[in-house]
């Protein structure tokens, strides 16, 4: 794979919070359609890396190139680039003042200038896909956590992004709801979406991941297939971590 | 034996009574009082008091007498007792130069300002077609006139002349347009609480008379006007 084929290129990226080096010389290429799962202990920089891809964090050094465009280059419109990137947060972050449908229709209508009808059609399709079309006219706070997270995924998909970023999408959920969200993610993966997921659901990783990345202290320590991690992780740090979460 | 008389004065009324740069209350009336002290056993203690409420304070007994350019009117006589007159006033109308206001008739449709509760205020509000605005201080009314928010200011002629003529800034723009004629002459007097302090009233009247007779009154008058 040539570097230029990659849809996400992370090159020599550093990010500091004060003295703390949250990202320490990160290099990573992700090809179109690839599914990457990021694991690592708390505070290792997983979220920071994911958020940097979306420029929710401003990096201090290096380059992040999405679909050929350097996102930190002032000439590139970051808002246009972000439309290519769907993001799903641990805490759902649905807009509480809009119905489920409103949440899904807002960005397509305002940003892609779709008509109300077009936006609603797309929204309803996506709600079908994530299995909660019956809740279209309900406000988010009436939904369970699992349902909210599925709406959040649908909302991100409504902008028809090329890449989906997930930051521990299931870790705020009660155990009985994790399955329904993972199912949606697995289907998405099967449809060929490029995905970067921070998650410790190793079943999910095994099922869909092309590549697993283990981070620690802001560095990428080890990269490999899921099988590699389950069977023969190289580094002691990785072994220790896996022994804790499995 | 000395008689102490506390006096209220709204010292925002130059040249009749005002606070000078040394923060002392001065003007025509205070000097008159000082002259009266010299010819009698009275000791005046002048206190600066806001005009609005100056009569309420007298009624409440906060002071014995008001020496603050109070015109003697029938309405006021009902609620207070006056000394002999000490000054004759007319109501002066200040307007912008070139405003073409020359008589009472020209005031129709105009906005007039005056200090609340003064004769100027009482007279002007009775003129038909005039929108009346009342101010706490005459100076604020003149400033609003200068700034173009009102068309005329009505106040005692001596005060009007002072504002219109002696102040450099105002004298460029403002002039004493005319005097409001009234059927009966209007006099200023010292006001006392109704029914109280008759002895003090008498002392004041006596002293005033002495000052007038001695020619001291004219000397002070000429100094200020």
């Amino acid at each position, binding site marked *: 794979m040539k570097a230029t084929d990659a849809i996400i290129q992370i090159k020599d990226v550093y990010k500091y919070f004060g003295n703390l080096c949250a990202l320490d010389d990160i290099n990573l290429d992700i090809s179109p359609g690839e599914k990457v799962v990021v694991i690592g202990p708390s505070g290792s920089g997983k979220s920071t890396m994911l958020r940097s891809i979306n420029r929710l964090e401003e990096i201090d050094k290096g380059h992040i190139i999405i679909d050929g465009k350097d996102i930190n280059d002032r000439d590139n419109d970051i*808002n246009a680039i972000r439309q290519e990137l769907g993001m799903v947060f641990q805490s759902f972050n649905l807009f509480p003042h809009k119905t489920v449908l409103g949440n899904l229709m807002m960005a397509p209508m305002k940003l892609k200038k779709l008509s109300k009808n077009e936006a609603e059609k797309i929204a309803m399709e996506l709600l079908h896909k994530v299995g909660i079309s019956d809740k279209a006219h309900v406000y988010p706070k009436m939904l369970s956590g699992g349902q909210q997270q599925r709406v959040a995924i649908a909302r991100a998909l409504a*902008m028809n992004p090329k890449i989906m970023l997930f930051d521990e999408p299931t870790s705020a959920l009660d155990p009985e709801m994790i399955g329904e969200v993972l199912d949606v993610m697995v289907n998405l993966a099967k449809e060929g979406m490029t995905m970067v997921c921070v998650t410790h659901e190793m079943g999910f990783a095994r099922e869909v991941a092309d590549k697993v990345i283990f981070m620690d202290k802001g560095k990428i320590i080890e990269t490999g297939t899921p099988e590699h991690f389950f069977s023969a992780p190289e580094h002691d740090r990785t072994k220790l971590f896996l022994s804790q979460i499995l | 034996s000395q008689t102490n008389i506390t006096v209220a004065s709204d010292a925002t009324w130059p040249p009749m009574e005002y606070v000078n740069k040394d923060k002392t209350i001065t003007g025509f009336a205070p000097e008159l009082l000082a002259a009266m002290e010299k010819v009698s056993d009275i000791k005046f203690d002048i206190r600066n008091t806001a005009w*609005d409420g100056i009569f309420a304070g007298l009624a409440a007994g906060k002071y014995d007498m008001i020496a603050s350019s109070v015109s003697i009117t029938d309405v006021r006589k009902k609620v207070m007792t006056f000394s002999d007159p000490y000054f004759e006033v007319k109501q002066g109308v200040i307007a912008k130069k070139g405003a073409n206001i020359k008589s009472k008739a020209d005031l129709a449709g105009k906005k007039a300002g005056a200090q609340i509760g003064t004769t100027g205020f009482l007279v002007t509000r009775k003129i038909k077609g005039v929108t009346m605005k*009342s101010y*706490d201080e005459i100076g604020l009314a003149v400033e*609003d006139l200068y700034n173009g*928010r009102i068309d005329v200011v009505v106040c005692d002629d001596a005060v009007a002349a002072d504002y219109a003529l002696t102040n450099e800034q105002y004298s460029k723009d403002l002039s004493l347009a005319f005097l409001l004629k009234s059927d009966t002459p209007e006099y200023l007097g010292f006001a006392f609480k109704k029914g109280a302090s008759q002895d003090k009233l008498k002392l004041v009247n006596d002293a005033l008379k002495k000052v007038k007779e001695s020619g001291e009154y004219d000397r002070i008058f000429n100094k200020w006007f």
Partner: protein
Amino acid sequence: MADKSHPINIEVGDGAAIPVKKDKGLVNAWSISFFGAIGCIIYLCLVDPDMYWEVLKFLPDGILVTFQVTIASIFLSLIIGLFTGLGRISDNKIINTVASTYVEIVRGIPLLVQLFYIYYALGRFEFLQISELPSAIIAMGICYGAYMGEVFRAGIASIDKGQGEAARSLGFNKTQTMFMVILPQSWKTILPPVGNEFIALLKDSSLVSILAVADILRRGREFASVTFSYFEAYTMVALVYLVITLILSKAVSKMEERLNYYEGY
């Protein structure tokens, strides 16, 4: 300031005492004050109509002016406040400092001094030769804009950061995020203090009487200056203000209840 650095932060607003349901004492006090005030007005007018009824008849256009000043000023202050609030949270250092300095200065000078100052300073500029009511409104609006700015700031700060991030990640720019996602959510938090400021502003509007604007207080003082009935005139003025602010504070408390129980979201 809705400052979170203290464990408990007491702020007594300058509005009226809002009779919220859980404060039984105030609810009782509200009824006593309100019906007491109304009763007093009626009683006084019946017993001494020559005096009190005359005062009351003298006031209505003053009440109108008070409301005009209050309503216009609150609108102006909301607009100023919105921009100030946004400025106060802006990352742009210059905008932030300008907004903060505006707040610091306005809150550091007595309202009465500001009124005098703005009113007469405005008057000095030829092109601003506007009549007293607009000048008074502009002055009150500028003063209250600083307070409203803090209300907006706190209202915006009360919205979870994740909301903004979610909107940005969908591709909304900063302005769209603010106006389509943050502000629509923060009105629930902003509305009650705005109601409170409205009452505070109505009370403070009595200061414009010093600028010779013919509001309730001015009318009362004019009446008193002619009739020398200071006690009666001020009694009536106080009662009228009391009735008005009590009605408004009840309205604010009803609004707060509504907002608390509003099940829309």
